[in-house]
């Protein structure tokens, strides 16, 4: 051992066997999830003649975006052949009010549960939690009847209300946990200053909520965009979201199956949540942790 081996400065990092193992595992896992996407992208760029040759991972000889434009504006979804752009527009129309409404509602209930020791508050919270874990297929039939009776079944309002209701338990949980971690004395200070229920929420609590609102937006945007069954059931024919239309594109076949169009339509439908995940990975993980750790 020479004097140069005396520990000083940053500790040298050695490549140990376990570290190599971790890398191998990570690369393998990434490949497992990325390969299908890769195959889809390749297929969507190939003309049908190349696809029929059968090699999934062969790079396209003559790449073409024809399938993408067909999927977007001409693919047949049932009887109409206007592509899934119609579905995209519907999904946006459903998404924006649903995300806003469910987060606003969740923030309000979470705030009330965290800061106001309302009588029965814990019971309400317990019921919400149970609600969050019951498969929602159970509720569909009764809700269809109720909505039909009120007269909002098959309307945009109907589907927005549905998303707000089903988003409520988890949004409440998310906001309640976040607000419980804020110091209570802050809330007390605002009370002494004379702010009321909504005043404290608006001036003191919401300005501190940016991180959790971002998390909630990510969760709700991906969740609502990916929804299929609620959109199919409650949105009505005129408002069918992109997922439902995609299903129709894939299911509607005359003659040969147009794999390229199917793939392009699928990627287009998945593009928004995919982009959200890619852009906001860090926040997304934080959201999952926030929902899971404290209860």
């Amino acid at each position, binding site marked *: 051992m020479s004097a140069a081996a005396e520990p000083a400065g940053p500790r040298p990092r050695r490549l140990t066997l376990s570290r190599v193992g971790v890398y191998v595992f990570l690369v393998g896992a990434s490949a497992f999830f990325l390969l299908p996407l890769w195959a889809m992208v390749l297929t969507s760029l190939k003309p049908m003649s190349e696809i029929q040759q059968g090699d999934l991972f062969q790079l396209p000889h003559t790449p073409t975006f024809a399938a993408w434009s067909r999927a977007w504006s001409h693919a047949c979804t049932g009887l109409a052949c206007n592509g899934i752009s119609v579905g995209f527009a519907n999904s946006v129309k459903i998404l924006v009010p649903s995300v806003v409404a469910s987060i606003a509602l969740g923030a309000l209930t979470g705030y009330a549960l965290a800061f106001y020791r309302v009588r029965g508050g814990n019971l309400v919270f317990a019921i919400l939690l149970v609600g969050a874990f019951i498969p929602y297929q159970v509720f569909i039939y009764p809700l269809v009847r109720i909505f039909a009776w009120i007269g909002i079944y098959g309307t945009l309002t109907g589907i927005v209300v549905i998303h707000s209701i089903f988003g409520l338990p988890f949004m409440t949980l998310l906001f309640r946990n976040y607000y419980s971690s804020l110091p209570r*004395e*802050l809330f*007390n*200070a605002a*009370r*002494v200053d*004379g702010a009321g229920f909504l005043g404290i929420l608006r*001036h003191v609590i919401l300005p*501190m909520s940016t991180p959790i609102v971002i998390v909630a937006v990510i969760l709700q945007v991906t969740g609502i965009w990916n929804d299929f069954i609620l959109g199919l059931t409650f949105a009505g024919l005129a408002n069918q979201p992109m997922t439902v239309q995609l299903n129709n594109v894939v299911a509607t076949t005359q003659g040969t199956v147009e794999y390229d169009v199917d793939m392009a339509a699928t990627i287009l439908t998945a593009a928004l949540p995919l982009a959200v995940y890619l852009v906001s990975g860090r926040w997304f993980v934080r959201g999952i942790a926030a929902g899971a750790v404290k209860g």
Partner: protein
Amino acid sequence: MGAVSIRDVSVGFGAVNVLSGLSLDVADGEFVVLLGASGCGKSTLLNAIAGLIEVSAGQIWIGGRNVTWAEPKDRGIGMVFQSYSLYPRMTVEGNLSFGMRIAGKPADEVAKRVARAAGMLHLEPLLARRPAELSGGQRQRVAIGRALVKDADVFLFDEPLSNLDAKLRNELRVEIKKLHLELGSTMVYVTHDQVEALTLADRIAIMDRGVIQQFAGPREIYRRPANRFVADFIGSPAMNMFDGALEDGGRRFASPQGSADLSAYEFAGAARPARATMGVRPEHVAIGPAPAGHAALSGKVSIVEPMGGETVLWADCAGKPVSVKLDGETKAKPGDDMTLHFDPAEASLFDAASGARL
């Protein structure tokens, strides 16, 4: 307009009773300090006065009004919280003016009052900053300012200086004293710090486990503690305690360390139990032969602690360490034999069983 009256108030958290049947009367314009060990219920009492926790029994009156069921904002109080609790997303100015803006006060009045509070607490250069951009002492001043802008009748301070260094603490202590003289409002002030309590208070309430042990002026608390708890709690080094017995129907106190003539001692009541404890403040003990009427002790010096302006000397008297506080310095060294004496009239006698003052 700011007298505070707490009448038989009880507060509990679930099964734990933090305060039970506590009563306290604070006169208008008075500066009262709540002093007690950690967890004894000081913050709880303050929060009950503010209306931030519900009382399970009793009443709270502020300014002659029963406010037991009133909202915090309707009680005419300003409060400084133990952990500053500044609104993190607002500037200092926003923090100071929040209450007035919520109340819909006209902008020029808001500006005037913010300027006045900022002036009193030297916050002018900081008005545009966020709390995260302030030092601990600056935050503390903002927290005090936020309470002061309100022109409340009663100010509640929960350990407002606890997170500061000694120098800043002294400065702000003086500031608070000045503010009280200037504003003339009632102040209820919680602290752990004896010096703060003794210097600021008109009256001090010493609490132990949710019960007020003594409520009196600083001098009275210091010189005539109502029981052993108060005697031990106040003063540093702590009061010297000698366990012994009353003899001759209470005319003499005898202990292993020596005996004292009690003819000059003012008994608080008629009770004369056999077993008693005598407490003597370190600064009431002197070195040298005892003059007439004084009690004498002999001991061997064990430790000498010079503290700058004064010196604390510890002597071993018949197996009991006795502390002596001397002005200036001393030539005494560990190992020296010496005679000590004190005036029994300045001592305190406690019932050995109940701890109450005799």
